[in-house]
């Protein structure tokens, strides 16, 4: 095994290119999660006969799904070419899959909400509600695949945990947003969802950060921007959940708690995206695990994951050709 102190680089320059995505992308990850989980919440509420909650959740879903394409187009280098996303169907590109998902989800959620508000075409409206409720969980989780499907260590190595972080964040957002719009006993299931999902989000995030280990997970430790955002997200999520739990009979507290919970889920997405930027710019995070893979050693402090150590035989063979030489 090569000790980390001996990780070499080209004048400390990054091996990878940092992601070029700006604030609309993590904002979209939040909005898409809110839209997806809200649609599922609406469907479940409808099935349970809680029409008041179903209506609020459906409106939340439609609102968030309307914002989503605006955010995505805003971040494109060539916004006028947004439709090029749909010129091919390409399963190897999670962004392409997501564009199609959003293209299906948007009209479904907006159509269902329009029907709900106007009372027009109730039958098709319910069908669209079912469709958006079924697509919702995918819209809330595919964005995790999108970022994991890159060479960035903090993203790629979190391929197994990130979908759960995003799913629980989405569920917490949907529950909190529904509570904001729904005073009274009908919001009880949304309140439960927000609380349980907030706990799951807190646990999932900690598990992800720990499993990433000292190299891929480096941005989440220390005093960098991603670490600060991650701590803020955890504090907001925990604080929001506590306020909601305390405010069951006091609407003001409950509203404050729900808003805080939403902020926590949003900040968590910004933390993940920022961690990717910091991870890409750190040559050691890229080189050290690859170097260890070549010398056939196990990763310290993190288990072999999606991207690591899949072909020990081939790795060892290649390792002979590129054996580290003292310099």
């Amino acid at each position: 095994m090569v000790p980390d102190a001996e990780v070499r680089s080209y004048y400390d320059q990054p091996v990878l290119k940092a992601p070029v995505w700006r604030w609309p992308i993590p904002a979209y990850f939040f909005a898409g999660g809110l839209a997806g989980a809200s649609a599922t919440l609406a469907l479940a509420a409808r099935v349970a006969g809680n029409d008041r909650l179903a209506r609020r959740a459906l409106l939340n879903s439609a609102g968030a799904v309307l914002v989503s394409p605006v955010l995505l187009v805003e971040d494109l280098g060539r916004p006028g070419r947004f439709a090029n996303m749909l010129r091919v169907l390409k399963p190897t590109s999670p962004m392409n899959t997501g564009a199609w998902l959003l293209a299906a989800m948007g009209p479904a959620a907006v159509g269902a909400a329009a029907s709900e508000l106007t009372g027009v075409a109730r039958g098709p409206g319910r069908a669209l509600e079912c469709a958006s409720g079924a697509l919702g969980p995918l819209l809330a989780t595919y964005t995790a695949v999108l970022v994991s499907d890159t060479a960035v260590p903090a993203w790629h190595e979190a391929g197994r945990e990130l979908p759960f972080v995003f799913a629980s964040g989405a569920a917490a957002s949907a529950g909190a947003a529904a509570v904001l719009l729904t005073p009274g006993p009908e919001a009880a299931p949304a309140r439960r969802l927000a609380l349980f999902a907030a706990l799951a989000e807190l646990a999932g995030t900690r598990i992800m950060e720990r499993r990433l280990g000292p190299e891929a997970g480096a941005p989440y430790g220390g005093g960098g921007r991603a670490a600060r955002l991650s701590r803020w997200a955890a504090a907001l999520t925990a604080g929001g959940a506590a306020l909601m739990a305390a405010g069951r009979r006091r609407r003001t507290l409950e509203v404050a708690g729900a808003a805080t919970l939403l902020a926590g889920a949003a900040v968590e997405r910004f933390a993940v995206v920022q961690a990717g930027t910091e991870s890409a710019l750190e040559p050691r995070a890229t080189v050290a695990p690859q170097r260890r893979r070549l010398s056939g050693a196990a990763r310290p402090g993190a288990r072999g994951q999606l991207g690591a150590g899949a072909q020990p035989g081939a790795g060892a063979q290649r390792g002979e050709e590129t054996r580290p030489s003292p310099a």
Partner: protein
Amino acid sequence: MNEHGPRVGFFTDTSVCIGCKACEVACKEWNGVPEDGLDFRATSYDNTGMLGANSWRHVAFVEQARPVPSGDGGGSGVRWLMSSDVCKHCTRAACLDVCPTGALFRSEFGTVVVQADVCNGCGYCVPACPFGVIDQRKDDGRAWKCTFCYDRLGAGLEPACAQACPTDSIQFGPLDELRARAARRVSRLQEQGTAEARLYGHDQGDGVGGAGAFFLLLDDPEVYGLPPDPVVTTRDLAGMWRAAAAAALSLAAGVAAVFAGSRR
């Protein structure tokens, strides 16, 4: 892999690179690549820094203090490593896999090219590349990288960088021929005592299925800013989708569970 003739490649033999940067200049001139800043980086004679949207060839300069054998017992000296880096035109190219518009495509020559009239500037290819090659041009919004001189290949010419290289450090040709030539070259160098000579990106069993542009290096790849064991990220895509499906099902189950007992 195609009916248009053999897959072409670059074999960059860094043992004969003299760091003249003629490749960088020829590439810029032929392809009309904008200026990328003329910075004094205070590290070496490298004032390009790295590959990017506006640098499709990049000559790395590595200065190493090391013992030098000489008549009176040897002493310390300096070794220069110079290497002209370029897009690897991977067999399994992550940029091409993740591109949502199909702007990136595999050409009839086996190279990987961006169609500038299709690219919508989503930026997905940028963090996907395990070599950090492709990047977004800020004033233009689209992603750019080496095209392997697609236009010149079509006209039966070799790429501008290879033609301009005065020492044949950059060799162009059918990939199979280049691989055979590189194997001979590396074994000859090793026989002559350059034990540290090794090939990089030539192995079709590596994480990107072998590179279309591969190298003979005189030190570890990371010393030149290259990843030692790059893997195409989409190799793990199925596992990521499985995790996402499990998370999506958990989300649906969780939402259903909070209504348990509340059905009217």
